[in-house]
């Protein structure tokens, strides 16, 4: 087997040196009834055969590269410069271990430090950690931080937060003494202020909003952080990082913790993972941050050096007293995001955000002109919006897919009763031809 260098001769002589007459001698401590299980596995394939197999299986999937896709809802198709994968494909990065030996991992550590710096800039907050599994688990960790920090037991979350994320929150809190309460949104998708203020009280540990929310709407959070802080709770915002090149930051909204899905920053949609959970907060909460942090220090000669820091929060030191059980982060995805943000730079990150708005507004206006489709033109959005159709989305989806278009995400499966509504996303990757074709196909639905 070409991944396994030991030959039969190697093994024979090594067993001899060990003092064993056969491999089975090494298994004497294992109860005999357990040995030699029957495995149902296929025989080995050659690389030629596997490439053919995988090309075939890959060919059985449609993808956003060979269609015109208007899918979003937590996973976004953005332009990824070729330079990103040329760096993440460096063997010294992707085959390295967690940087527990800082002297042998300065590359990874400095890259994480720069990633933290870039995320903090984007979020308008003081600190960022080295990442979590994805946006949804980052949000769950933020809720746990608020519960621990305040010593309270309730989280208040907007129903316009991504449904997957609310499901994950619910999963993380089940079986604990903590509870989750939701508040409503209005017809066009912004949160309902009365519903929110009615539920805000001093039992609440943390309040969660998403902006742009699941319906693509920019939430007007004016005055919210003051109200949340007045009852002694923390404000947690779930954000779309790309939007922050141009749009108001969690820091500017007065958030205590900002989380988000980092996939749009240079990571392919890749069927939902691996993704990148962003997690940023204020300096006041730094010692409560779950997960890894890279810090700058010096070596004994005064040379600039990076290491993992504040490790007293972590499981390998604290065991059952740790701030979370997290061991791995998503280092390679964080590297991709760091390279992406560096390539975009100060001008590019702003331009990508503006181009997203450009494509989405162009499309929204065209769809608004179609018979059988209604959109709210006045609602402030970033790059996603809801279309209210006069027929079930399923019908539209079927017709569009026949033309190699993914028209968006049906809202019926998340919000029963909304079977005619769907969420459309247009990023900077969409060409004018794709947008116009989509409108034409929709007009024939």
């Amino acid at each position: 087997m070409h991944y396994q260098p030991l030959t039969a001769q190697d093994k024979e002589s090594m067993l001899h040196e060990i003092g064993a007459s056969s491999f089975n001698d090494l298994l004497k401590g294992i109860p005999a009834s357990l040995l030699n299980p029957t495995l149902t596995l296929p025989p080995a394939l050659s690389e030629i055969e596997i490439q053919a197999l995988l090309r075939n299986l890959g060919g059985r999937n449609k993808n956003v590269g060979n269609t015109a896709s208007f899918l979003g809802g937590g996973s976004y198709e953005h332009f990824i410069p070729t330079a990103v994968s040329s760096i993440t494909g460096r063997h010294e990065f992707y085959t390295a271990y967690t940087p527990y030996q800082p002297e042998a991992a300065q590359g990874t550590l400095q890259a994480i430090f720069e990633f933290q710096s870039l995320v903090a800039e984007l979020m308008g907050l003081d600190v960022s950690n080295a990442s979590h599994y994805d946006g949804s688990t980052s949000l769950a960790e933020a809720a746990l931080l608020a519960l621990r920090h305040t010593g309270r037991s309730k989280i208040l979350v907007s129903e316009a937060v991504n449904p997957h994320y609310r499901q994950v929150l619910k999963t993380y809190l089940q079986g604990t003494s903590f509870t989750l309460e939701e508040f409503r949104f209005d017809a066009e998708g912004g949160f309902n202020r009365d519903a929110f203020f009615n539920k805000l009280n001093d039992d609440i540990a943390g309040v969660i909003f998403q902006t742009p929310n699941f319906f693509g709407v920019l939430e007007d959070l004016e005055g919210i952080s003051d109200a949340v802080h007045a009852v002694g709770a923390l404000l947690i915002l779930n954000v779309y990082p790309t939007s922050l090149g141009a749009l108001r930051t969690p820091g500017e909204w007065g958030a205590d913790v900002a989380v988000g899905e980092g996939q749009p920053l240079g990571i392919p949609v890749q069927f939902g993972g691996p993704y990148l959970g962003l997690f940023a907060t204020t300096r006041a909460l730094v010692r409560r941050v779950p997960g890894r942090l890279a810090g700058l220090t010096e070596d004994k000669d005064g040379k600039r050096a990076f290491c993992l820091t504040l490790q007293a929060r972590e499981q390998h030191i604290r065991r059952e007293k740790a701030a979370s059980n997290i061991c791995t982060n998503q280092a390679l995805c964080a590297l991709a995001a760091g390279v992406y943000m560096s390539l975009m730079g100060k001008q590019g990150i702003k331009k990508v955000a503006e181009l997203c708005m450009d494509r989405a507004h162009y499309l929204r206006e065209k769809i608004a002109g179609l018979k059988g489709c209604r959109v709210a033109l006045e609602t402030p959005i970033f790059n996603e919006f809801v279309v209210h159709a006069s027929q079930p989305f399923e019908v539209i989806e079927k017709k569009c897919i026949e033309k190699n278009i993914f028209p968006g995400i049906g809202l019926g499966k998340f919000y029963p009763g909304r079977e005619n509504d769907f969420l459309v996303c247009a990023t900077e990757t969409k060409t004018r031809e794709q947008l116009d074709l989509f409108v034409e196909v929709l007009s024939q639905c």
Partner: protein
Amino acid sequence: MLISKDDRLIFEKSSAGRTGAGLPTAFIAAKNPFKTLNPKFRRKEDAQFPEVAEPEIIRHYVNLSRKNFSIDTHFYPLGSCTMKYNPKLNEWAAAQEGFSQVHPHQPESTIQGYMHILYELEQFLKTMTGMDHFTLQPAAGAHGELTGMMLIHAYHHSRGDTKRRKVLVPDSSHGTNPATAALLGYEVVTLKSNARGRVDLAELKSHLDETSACLMLTNPNTMGLFESDILEITKAVHQAGALLYYDGANLNALLGIARPGDMGFDIVHLNLHKTFSTPHGGGGPGAGPVGVKAYLLPFLPHPLVEKTGSAYRWAAESKQSVGRVKSFFGNAGMLLRAYTYIVTLGIDGIKKISEDAVINANYLKEKLKDVLPVAVDEVCMHEFVLTLKAAKAKGIHSGDVGKRLLDYGYHAPTVHFPLVVDEALMIEPTESESRETLDLFIAALRQIAREIEESPELVLGAPWTMPIGRPDEVKAARNPILTYRDVVREREKNAKEPVASKP
């Protein structure tokens, strides 16, 4: 000079007006929607990103990569981390557009190829572990543990058995075990190992009662020793009404040899980035599928793939499911790599993994035991633990030996773990290493053992040949500098500090 001396941050290479990316133009420039947006939604200050052109960015990151050890450049005898070779074919597979460009919200009919892979991978994992069902959703080992503990909680509660508030873990366990149990509000009971480095049956039985929720166990344990009383252990735990959780970090020792399902474990998590060759990525992403016995199926997270005829679909959600532990279906790209690995090796190659890993570990142990004492000198499985306690009198700790190994071109073993061994060096060679590599490593450790006797300062001050010496971790924790803004602020603060005038 092979390694660049340039230690500037990317921010310190910035010059106004540069960019590293070419972008298209707007379609409706005439009425730019950003300009007409209510100003309260706009950011007031631009993100202070660096402004650097592509060539400089590439040089920056390539030079950073050269400051790393990695499995493709160095041997990593890192115990319990299973640093095996990451096949290039797996990376090729993940980069194919038919996989990397698939959107997770696509309808079932357009993702049949990917669903086939998830379904098949589940079948492979089931047969290798002896479990009945798997969820592929958890993103890492610790995430799998969290999922597993949720399943245990949901199971007991579904039976109205709400008194079970204790989770038992051996003192040799991974730190994530007690941390995970605590996260769900369980009281952690630490079991003392016996003199043979294994679970002490009497100690275990003395803690088992109607308040025990589960025992979390790694087998072979972190000493690399098979729990030879495993059948008595699982029997005792089940008799007390508790469940058995298998931490799959050490599964690389057992493929085709023995299965946790047959041992009596109810729940298993696997680390695909260990046993199934997906890359560690400098600390993730991983993947931590969780397998269960049939009676726990209703509690598994959703979505789950099911096969009907030759087509695949998402199974209907069970009312008892613990819910979703992550958006979408898990780290699909990692699942695809693991699938590729398994079909490449096939049944014979899979069995050879553990056979070779166990032979390599025993060979190393046999050759090293006259250099440094083995914590428990018995036949080991895929790893073993040496102790450096004799050198302690000289002020040398196992961590120092790890640092010195870097100078010899080897990554440090896992040091100061497991906690049950004084001055532990935990060594796992994996099946990827040749005998010649092991012999060179043995020679290096032999040389370091000599240095401990003859020139301990060489070991104490190590490493000498890395891009940096040992970082001042106390300073890093006392005054955390975590972003470039902190660097700038610190610099300004120091510049402002008054300089004492000369007398």
